[in-house]
Every structure is written in structure tokens, then in C-alpha cells.
């Protein structure tokens, strides 16, 4: 296992380098440049050209790439054009919000996805199953911005239990009460994303519950709860873990709509803002961070498989 993990970790660097090259050239294919956005609607072409020159954007692309590469090798991802601060610092500032939002949302996804999925499979073709399926369908169909605004109206404006928007750091202040900022966004994101997990858990469980070893366990008189939670769920878990882990990565990197509705300073919003402002250094830094995140989550998922299913061996 250790050798396998080392191999996988070693493969991360060349993958990230490839991502860096692709992103650097791909974003420059999008028409428009940061100078035009920075100067605003009333700027003349001369003003835009002058600022492009000052920012070095009129240099040949390969020269710009060479300079960028040299900086990255020194661990410097450059300065954000739009936010005037080092890209690394900017991304780190946003990571806390996104990480905590993803974590809280994952709890909601788990609670609304896995137990109802198991229950629906066990109570197959009953009223409970139909109700839970309807609930999952609702989650998959409701636009997150609408659900977010409705929750805000209900639990921030009419019954003022939570703040409408914003976020204050939990790590920096040590104030756990700041989790209140994440309640409504997490419910929004969690509900919308739980539908897939619930349906997958149900179908995966249904498949496993037909297996011979489940029938044998039942015929041996093993308690039903033990049959479901130990024998069936463990075997049904691999697809659920796969979907769950990638849902987590998605929640961390692309919860744009929810972050916008609740004005959360997260990674997803930063991605969109950077693209709209053509903030090349920030987009590059973000894409590398997101690629790294997916690679690590992928690795953790693979390792988790081995723990769930002893038949899986990587050595």
C-alpha cells in the first residue's frame, strides 16, 4: 500500500505541470484582457493599450509563459491583477469558507442521502419508498438560487434565526458561533446534492440485498439491522463513496451559485470573478489548486476502497 501511495503522489507533480501548461494557454484564447475590464466602460483604446503595456500583456506569449514558469518554480504564483495581492494568499483566504461550507454541506448530503436511500431500498415499493423518491426528485429539480433565497426569506428575514449572508472566520477567531453563517448555505447545497446520493444508495443497496450472502445471513437468523448495516451496506458502499467524494470536491470548488446568493467569499465565486475579470494569475493558481484537490480526493477515495473491501489490494 505504501508503495502504491508513493507512486500516486509522485504522479501528482507531472499532472499539475500539464494542467499549468493547458490552463496558461487556454485562458489566453478567451477574447478580452484584464486591462479592458480594469479600466471600465468609458476607457479609450489608447488607455487600454497603455495599461496592457504596463502589465506586460503586450509581450510575446512564450516570454510571458517563461516568466510565469520561473516564478512558479520559486513557489510564487504571482500577484492577482484584480485583487492586488499574492495569488497564494488570496486563495488561502477563500479556502476556509469553501472547506467549511463543503464539510457542513457534506454532513447534510450524508444525512439526507444515505439513511433515506437505505430506508427506501429496505422498504422498496412501499409508500415510504415513494415518498423518499419524491423527496430526492425534488432535491434534484429545485434550483439552488431559489431554494437559497426561500430559506433566507424564511429563516433570516421572517424568523431571524440566521444571518442573510456573509461569513466570519472560524479558524482565525476561534468563534464556533460563526458556523451560523453556514447553516442556510449548507442546507441549500446539501439538499440539492443529496438527491444523487440518495438514489445511488437506494439502487446500490437494492442490488446487494438480492445477493446470496445476504440471503444466507438472513437464513442463519442474523438480526435484520446487522444484515443491512454490516453485510449489505459495506458491499454497497463503493459507488456511494465514489460519488460522495467527488460531490465533496465539487462542493469545495464550484458552489458558485450558493456562494453568490449568500455572499460567501469562497473559491467558486473567486473562479467566476477571476474569469470575468481575466485575472490570469488567479485563474492559473485556482485551476492548479482545484486539480490538486481532485487528485488528492481521488487518491483518498482509492485508499478508502481498500478499507471497505478487503479483496482490493494495490500491492
Amino acid at each position: 500500500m505504501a508503495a502504491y501511495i508513493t507512486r500516486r503522489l509522485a504522479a501528482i507533480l507531472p499532472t499539475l505541470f500539464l494542467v499549468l501548461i493547458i490552463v496558461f494557454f487556454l485562458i489566453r484564447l478567451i477574447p478580452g484582457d484584464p486591462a479592458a475590464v480594469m479600466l471600465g466602460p468609458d476607457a479609450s483604446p489608447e488607455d487600454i493599450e497603455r495599461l496592457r503595456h504596463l502589465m506586460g500583456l503586450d509581450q510575446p506569449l512564450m516570454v510571458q509563459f517563461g516568466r510565469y514558469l520561473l516564478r512558479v518554480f520559486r513557489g510564487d504564483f504571482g500577484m492577482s491583477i484584480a485583487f492586488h495581492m499574492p495569488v497564494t494568499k488570496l486563495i488561502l483566504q477563500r479556502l476556509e469558507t469553501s472547506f467549511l461550507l463543503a464539510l457542513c454541506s457534506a454532513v447534510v448530503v450524508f444525512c439526507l442521502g444515505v439513511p433515506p436511500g437505505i430506508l427506501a431500498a429496505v422498504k422498496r415499493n412501499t409508500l415510504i419508498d415513494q415518498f423518499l423518491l419524491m423527496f430526492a426528485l425534488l432535491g434534484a429539480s429545485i434550483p439552488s438560487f431559489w431554494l437559497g433565497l426561500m430559506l433566507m426569506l424564511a429563516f433570516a428575514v421572517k424568523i431571524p434565526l440566521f444571518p442573510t449572508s456573509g461569513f466570519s472566520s472560524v479558524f482565525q477567531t476561534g468563534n464556533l458561533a460563526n458556523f451560523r453563517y453556514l447553516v442556510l448555505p449548507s442546507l441549500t447545497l446539501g439538499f440539492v446534492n443529496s438527491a444523487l446520493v440518495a438514489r445511488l444508495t437506494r439502487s446500490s443497496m437494492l442490488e446487494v440485498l438480492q445477493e446470496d450472502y445476504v440471503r444466507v445471513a438472513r437464513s442463519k437468523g442474523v438480526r435484520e439491522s446487522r444484515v443491512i448495516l454490516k453485510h449489505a451496506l459495506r458491499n454497497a458502499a463503493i459507488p456511494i463513496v465514489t460519488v460522495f467524494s467527488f460531490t465533496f470536491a465539487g462542493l469545495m470548488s464550484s458552489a458558485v451559485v450558493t456562494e453568490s446568493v449568500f455572499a460567501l467569499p469562497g473559491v467558486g465565486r473567486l473562479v467566476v470573478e477571476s474569469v470575468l475579470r481575466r485575472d490570469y494569475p488567479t485563474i492559473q493558481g485556482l485551476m492548479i489548486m482545484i486539480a490538486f484537490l481532485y487528485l488528492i480526493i481521488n487518491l483518498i477515495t482509492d485508499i478508502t476502497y481498500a478499507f471497505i473491501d478487503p479483496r482490493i489490494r494495490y500491492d
Partner: protein
Amino acid sequence: MRRYILLTLLCVGMVFGVLAEQPKYGGTLRYATIGEPPHLDLMLVTSDLASTIGQHIFETLFTFDEHYAPIPLLVDTYEVRSDGREIVLHLRQGILFHNGKELQAEDVVASLERWGKYGIRGPIMFQHVTAVVADDKYTVRILFETPFGPWQSLLAFNNGGPMIIPKEIAEAAGGKPLTPDQYIGTGPYKFAEWIPGKYIRLVRFEGYKSREEPPTGYGGARHAYLDEILFIPVPEAGTRLAGVQAGDFDYAEMIPADLYSVVKADPNINTYLLRPPFMALLFRNTKQGIMANNLMLQAVLAALDMEPIMKAAFGELFELNGSIFPKGTIWYSTAGTERYNQANLDKAKELLKEAGYAGEPIRLLTNTSYQYMYQYSLVIADQLRKAGMNIELRVYDWATMVKYRAQSGEWDLFVTSHGPIPDPALLTALSPTYPGWWDTPQKNELVNLFNTTVDFKDRYAIWEKIQALWYEEGSCIKLGDFYTLNISSAKRVGGLDDPHQPPLLWPYFWNAWLKG
């Protein structure tokens, strides 16, 4: 007895009512913005949000009163000599920058020179300037080659304008936008911190020296009652509104027009329609392509029915107005406006025939970054199609549209808007280098004459001629005026209802306070 009790209660109530409206120091005003400005270097940006925030930090030599007329701010008195070829500015004394240094003439000279060289609107004035000199510690002289009419308005307009910063910062920054550590001005609030995505925080500048005249518009006395102002980016309009309703924000900008009746009916919310209004515009390419033909301009003018165009984007918050400048401003004129809002499809078809138009595609650029532009471009496209024009609507984000509109071979029409300005000299459509490229000898001659005339009556007469020509051969079609809707919490914010300090384009919070 009962009458006495009632009378006493009434008196007590009145006293408390008056007391409640008295200005008081303290508190943090939370302003929900639509986003974040690119930076706060007002010389190098025309973003309205940058002006709104930056005007609390930086000040200009002049500013605007409640009627949008220029009045002194950092300047104490001024003289116009040599028929307008020489302006002498006597600065107020004892004004401090946020770094503790006293404002002196050398700072003004360095700031004006930086603005003239790199500022967005600086070259408009500096192409006429021969020198800016400091005569003594508090006197600055500006020398013009020829008289330059709009000098005072330009020195007052902070958007892309000449904010005054310390000499060392002006020289060190050159053409690059100032960095946050260089945000040093003379305003009533100073820059404290900017956490991207969370807020921009300003704090009261204790060393601020206010003017002593009564407040009027952006001018007169400025009192910093608030301890802090937070500008919080909240991109979703519904959230900005809900935030004010729930008490999470005290003030919110750019509430959609379709919510106007809702917020107007809420007693806990004060509404503000910012004046002067913005202009909704449609540009044509006069340099290249089918729209370069003036008859095509006339066909478009004949075809457009402005009411549905404006209504689609602004609900009831608009005004049909063919004058380039809004009603109530000194530059309002009806010259040429008989061609505005004709809604005559038959006439448009005739004109298209006369222009020799044979159904060639007409590329209309629009964008979804500014939703209102996208909304009115849909109606424009529909109306022009009904007149017989083969409109190809090309939808981009703002940055991409800016890129394409700079290339004359890439478009025929594009939509945009223009913020209110104090002088026609600042109209982008009059610049021969601005996309649209209106560059005819007659127009250039009139604009030159306009800029070198100092007397207002003479300038107004020339402006009327320019506006009439605008409708004959210009690169830009005025669609109408539209208002921005801002709101505040009626329970929390005081000082925003003074009739002498109306809600102007860039909301300002000196002289505002928090109740309770």
C-alpha cells in the same frame, strides 16, 4: 386632566422625535455593493463603485453642488486670468493627508501631472495645458495654450479624475494603479483594509478638516459621524434586499427595477433614485461596414420605439428623453430630438431602400454581464428585424464585447450605457478614437470650438449645434435615461434625507449617521 396628559405625552414624543433625528457619532455602516471595484485609483478607473468608495478617501480640487454645478473643495479661492488661459488656484491651508503630511501645492502639481499623463480623463484637459506650476506652498497655476471651457468640471469629476494624493505617491505610482498601501488621500474617511470577497473597510480620519459652508450635494461641510463604513460585495440583488430587511445591511445599491413597488411600500425601507440618471445607448460603426452609411442611422432612428426598449430593462425607472443630457441639467436641449423615438416602421423601410440595403447581416454586440443591456438589446433586435434589417445578435460577457467592439471589422452595432457627466467634453461618443469612431470635419471643428470657449452661453449654443449634428451623422443613438434604485434601512440610517444633499450618482456617507 386627560388633555394635559395627552399634551405632555405629545411634547415628550416630539422631543424624542427631534432627538432621534439629531446626528450622532459612532457605529459601522454596512453597505451592500453589487461587487468589488477593480481598484480605488480614481484617476485610472471609471467604475462607479470605485468612485462611490474612493470619494470618501480621496478629494478633488473642486466638486459638485446639489445642482451638479462645480464648486471648490480643496481649493479656497480661484482666479481666471488672460481670458481663460491662466487659472490660479489658492488652496485651503491646514489640510492633512491620511499619512499626516500637509497638503501643499507640490502635491497638487504632481497629482495633476500624473492625471494628465495617465488618467483616463486627464488627456482631455492636458492636451490644452502648457504647464502646471506651484507659485508658493498654497498656490497652483494652470496655463492653457488656448482657453479651455470645461476645466472646472473636469477638476471636480472624480471618476477617472484628478484626485489629489501626496507627491511621493503620485511619482512612485506613475501609470500603474495605486496599491492599497498607497490609498492616501485627504477625505473624511481613510482606507483600512480590503479583504477580497468580504469587504472594503474605511475608518474615520480624525485629522479631517471640513469646509464650513452648509452641505450642498458633494460640497460644503463634511462630518464623519460614522466610525467605520464597510462596503460588502453581495452579488445577488435579492440578498441585498433581504439583508436590509433583516438588519444585516444598512444600505444596499442597485435594487432591480421590478422590486421598486415592493420596497416603496415597505415602511422600514427608504428608497433613493440616484440623479442625474444614466443614459442607455446604441452605437453604430461609422468607420466600416453597412452601418457607416448615414441613411442607415436614419433608418434605425425611424424604426426604434423607445418605450418598450426602456421598459424591458428598467420597469418604471426610466424617462424617455432625446436630449443627450437629462432634464434639469444645464446642458439639456431639444435640438435634433424630433428624430428621437419615431417608431415608424414604414419610414424605416423606405430609408433602408434608399440606403441600398439588401439584407446584409448586421452584427449587434451585446453582453450578459450588464443584464439591462442584454434586455434592451433583445427588444432593439426585434424592432429592427421588423423594419427589415437582418440583425445578428452576438452575446458575450463584458470583457469579450469590449475586445470585439475595439475592432472595426467585427461589428455594426453595440449596446452600452454612459454614466452622468457634468460637461459634454466628457462624452465618450465625441472622441474620434472611441468605438463608433465619429470623426467628421464638421463635428471635430464644433467640438474644438466648444472646448476652447469659456463663456457658458456661447458654449451652450455650440452644444446645441453638436447635438443636432449627433442626430444627423453621429455614432451613437440615445435610447433614454434610467435611474438606479438604492435603499436604506429607515430604522438605522439618518442624514440621507437632506434636500440639499440629494441622492447623487455616487452615494456618500459623510453627514450620515446611525440611529439608535
